[in-house]
């Protein structure tokens, strides 16, 4: 029996080794965005997202809690798929620690999907939760929340769902939620990611 192990020649041959450097992560993100991403007008994206959020507000009779939930759920369903797209394009392996994960999310994932790089901050002491601060957010260009929504609606809540779903697929069980949003009149838009636990890969039935 002859077994070969080693690295793939495809996608990003260099990625597997040293993810520790955030510079590398940034490079991957930029390279993939530049060379391996089919793009579309961001404004169409903004408008499309706007149309669904306002539709949801109407469908749920302005019960914004339900709208938040629905957006989260839509995001989750995206997340569990989007992770495959992300992995296929970046070929990034699982991260060794949550700090790396945060870097990958910020500099790589957001970069190659939305072409933005929210910065990571507010680490908890235990290094199991951090915040993403969005200086720009293509979901919310030209959005102004209606008066009745400004205390309840998390306009970009779909992002939480996406992160939640995607992280779960790489066995990271997290809580993802918005802390503040400039649309609500806050000074910044802050999204919190908190790691609950690392899940184990499933085993085939009967094995242990």
């Amino acid at each position, binding site marked *: 029996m002859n077994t070969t192990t080693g690295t793939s020649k495809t996608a990003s041959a260099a990625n597997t080794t040293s993810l520790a450097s955030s510079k590398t992560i940034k490079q991957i993100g930029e390279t993939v965005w530049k060379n391996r991403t089919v793009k579309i007008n961001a404004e169409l994206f903004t408008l499309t*997202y706007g149309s669904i959020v*306002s539709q949801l*507000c109407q469908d749920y009779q302005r019960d914004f809690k339900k709208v938040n939930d629905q957006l989260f759920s839509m995001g989750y369903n995206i997340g569990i798929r989007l992770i495959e797209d992300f992995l296929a394009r970046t070929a990034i392996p699982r991260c060794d620690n949550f700090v790396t994960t945060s870097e990958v999310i910020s500099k790589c994932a957001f970069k190659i999907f939305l072409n933005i790089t929210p910065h990571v901050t507010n680490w908890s002491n235990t290094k199991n939760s951090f915040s993403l601060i969005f200086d720009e957010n293509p979901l919310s260009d030209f*959005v102004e929340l209606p008066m009745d929504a400004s205390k309840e609606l998390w306009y970009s809540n779909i992002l939480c769902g996406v992160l939640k779903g995607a992280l779960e697929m790489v066995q990271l069980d997290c809580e993802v939620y918005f802390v503040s949003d400039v649309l609500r009149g806050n000074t910044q838009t802050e999204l919190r990611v908190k790691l609950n636990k690392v899940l184990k890969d499933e085993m085939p039935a009967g094995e242990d």
Partner: protein
Amino acid sequence: MFYFTIIGTSDNPIYEAEFTTAKNTFQPEIKELNPYIVHSTLDIMEYLQWQRQPQLDINTSSGGFLRSRHSTQENSYLGKVDSFYGLAVSGFLTYGNIKFIMVHGNGTVDDTVTRSFYYEVYELYLKTLMNPFYKVNDPISNSAFDSKVRVLSKRLFV
């Protein structure tokens, strides 16, 4: 003094404002008529809306029909389109056929100033429109919009 309105696609005003100064205010009688004067101007606006050359071909000096003096390419800013007993009415059509109409209490339309006023308000309107929560034909209740328009209105008084 000026009475400015934005009219939606079903003749409904979606924004109205009066621009007055201490010395220039509408007579009460005119004041309450203004919305109706504007409404009646819609007849003229709709006529001009689909004309190849946005001019009234009836060349008259008074009354309800006044032709625009502009024969340029532009068919958004229509200049003075109507009049009503000494009041002049100017109009502007957006690409979505939202109508900006203004009653000029002084009876004349200064094209340069009015045109730039309309352009600026149009930009503000567009920003309102781009908000996904705003629906075409909804009244614009945003106070920032109101304030911005009022700042712009100052140039009308020059």
